[in-house]
């Protein structure tokens, strides 16, 4: 059996392992909840992780473009970018896919179905996905700052418009943006 076939056949198991590993980056009580609660609205983070990991894995397997992978990556990184994680931990969840692959494929390697070289090749493909996670993280943080500034402006927005109207006699377009 060739590696791509194994990765396709074992998709549910690999994703489940990955999910488990990612969820374990949260405190134990939280991890338990993220794993168990299945209602997407009662467990929004768990749901986003499921959707995101599945999408990333499938895209990774098919070798789709970064653009196609982006929404799935965004689904997860957007959350971790505001949670109590350092930047490296926020994006490091991607590397846990290597761990999931190793755990799942070790028996296959022992049986000689898959070679270590194959696995190393798969690892290098994970690294590419990892780089995308950095981009998404940086974008999310950038957005946070932009939105903060916009919010502060909105708070007294109308006062400014009024003041400027009095001075210049008109509302300037830049005041209303």
């Amino acid at each position, binding site marked *: 059996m060739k590696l791509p076939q194994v990765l396709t056949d074992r998709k549910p198991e690999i994703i489940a392992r990955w999910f488990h590993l990612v969820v374990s980056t949260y405190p134990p009580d939280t991890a338990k909840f993220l794993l168990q609660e299945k209602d997407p609205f009662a467990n929004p983070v768990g749901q986003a992780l499921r959707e995101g990991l599945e999408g990333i894995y499938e895209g990774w397997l098919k070798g789709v473009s970064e653009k196609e992978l982006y929404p799935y990556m965004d689904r997860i990184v957007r959350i971790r970018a505001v949670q109590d994680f350092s930047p490296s931990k926020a994006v490091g969840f991607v590397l846990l896919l290597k761990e999931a692959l190793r755990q799942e494929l070790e028996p296959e390697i022992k049986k000689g179905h898959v070679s270590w070289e194959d696995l190393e090749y798969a690892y290098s493909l994970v690294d590419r996905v990892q780089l995308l996670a950095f981009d998404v993280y940086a974008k999310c943080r950038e957005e946070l700052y932009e939105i903060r500034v916009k919010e502060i402006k909105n708070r007294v927005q*109308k006062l400014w418009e009024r003041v400027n109207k009095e001075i210049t006699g008109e509302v300037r377009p830049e005041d209303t943006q």
Partner: protein
Amino acid sequence: MSRISKPEELMKINYRPPKTGWMDTPVEFRRGTWLYAAKPKSLEVLELPNPREWSPEEEDWKLPENWKEILLQGLKERLERFRSLKLFLDICVRCGACADKCHFFLGSGDPKNMPVLRAELLRSIYRRDFTTTGKILGKLVGARDLTVEVVKEWYYYFYQCTECRRCSLYCPFGIDTAEITMLGRELLGLLGCYPDWTVASAANCYRVGNHVGIEPHAFRDMVEFCVDEIENITGIRVEPTFNRKGAEILFIAPSGDVFADPGIYTFMGYLMLFHEIGLDYTLSTYASEGGNFGLFTSHEVMKRLNAKMYAEAKRLGVKWILGGECGHMWRVIHQYMDTMNGPADFLEEPVSPITGTKFENAKSTKMVHICEFTADLIRHGKLNLDPSRNDHLIVTFHDSCNPSRAMGFFEEPRYILKNVCRNFYEMPENTIKENTFCCGSGAGLNADENFEMRMRGGFPRANAVRYVHQKYGVNLLACICAIDRAALPALMDYWVPGVAVAGVHELLGNALVMKGEKERTTTLRGEPLEGKGKREGEMEPGKDDA
């Protein structure tokens, strides 16, 4: 040994968080997740204790020397004063039913945001110092000593609770963690540990009349600005009055509606409505704030700020008070006003001058919610509405925590919405009405420095909006709370871009056909009103899909 090292070893980082018990996990004040300390001058205005310069980030919080004594004495007094507190501290069986119901737990993943653990922060001290088993068995029964670390933890976590009461809905004993948070905050207040955002707003309101601290002439000026805008859009000049004695009704809105975007459009909606029905009302530059940040400060401050509205109603000799779209203002009116400052015997039982409807629910407080008032007008056919003017909007409704869980107020705003717009979709059942998810910024948390925490807390709400945005193309989140109108736009920008936020009366203002108006070419926001009428694939007027 395998040839390839395990990735976890390669990275030499520990992905798994430490498995310490909650009592042994100290708080880390990471920027973006906590509120700045109150400035001494705000505390002085409100005569609150221990005014000083300090910061939660610093080691020394400059607590009074006998801080421990103050706290324990404060707790003792409150246990005697509030039977509910003692009950809540005693009867929790740690069943965990509330644990996963808090939006801060769901969004942050921090177990100390489970309501049961939030309460435990205070309960552990109560056990240690006020119960016999706790005194003897200590940690074995969940008791612990009161230390400076505990005070810091309280500050961190009692200001990560929006007092939304969602958790209490699921507790078999009705334990209300919001009340525990309120009293926890009061205790912190005895040491002068208040956040700037709440206390500065409360001080402004006490001194000037509103949270923003805008002086009467500027307040008036802003209302005039709205009047000009309305004239531009409709050709009609509405004429609100200020501090007019003998008016029938005093109208009080949250100040955010007068100064902030997008609240101001809701305010324009109010003014247009009042003009159209010929309401005999006045605004007050003294009671220019419906909100009450005292609720987030202490019972005493809440009482003082609330009293101001009634004092003004008395001074002006109005019959009753009409209140705008606000959240916590209604919690204060509905749950506290009557025993705190009421009953307001000097006012009359509210009756709609247009329909004759008696608002019996407001018999004692004499204060009517504008959505009840407007829904009643619509029901009696008193308004000429053209919902097609809102056809560019696909609307959903966010139930604000306070009107929904503190008042049971679900149908009136929906009734108005379904009459003023034609595309309305509900979010999933377990995220609306009494199950609603908080915006994540209530109870004094909507400060800028707390931005990341607010994004975490608001995620469950945003996640449900995302669902209707994707499924039905929802592009407008309607709400009836000024804090929502301030906080939700940022929440949407981050989690669900493409969804705007508006008050219900903004949409009413769009749809309201006023006598003698010119043909409208824009919405209240100045957006062009393009081709009215039904678009392909849209639902029938007034039909609700959910």
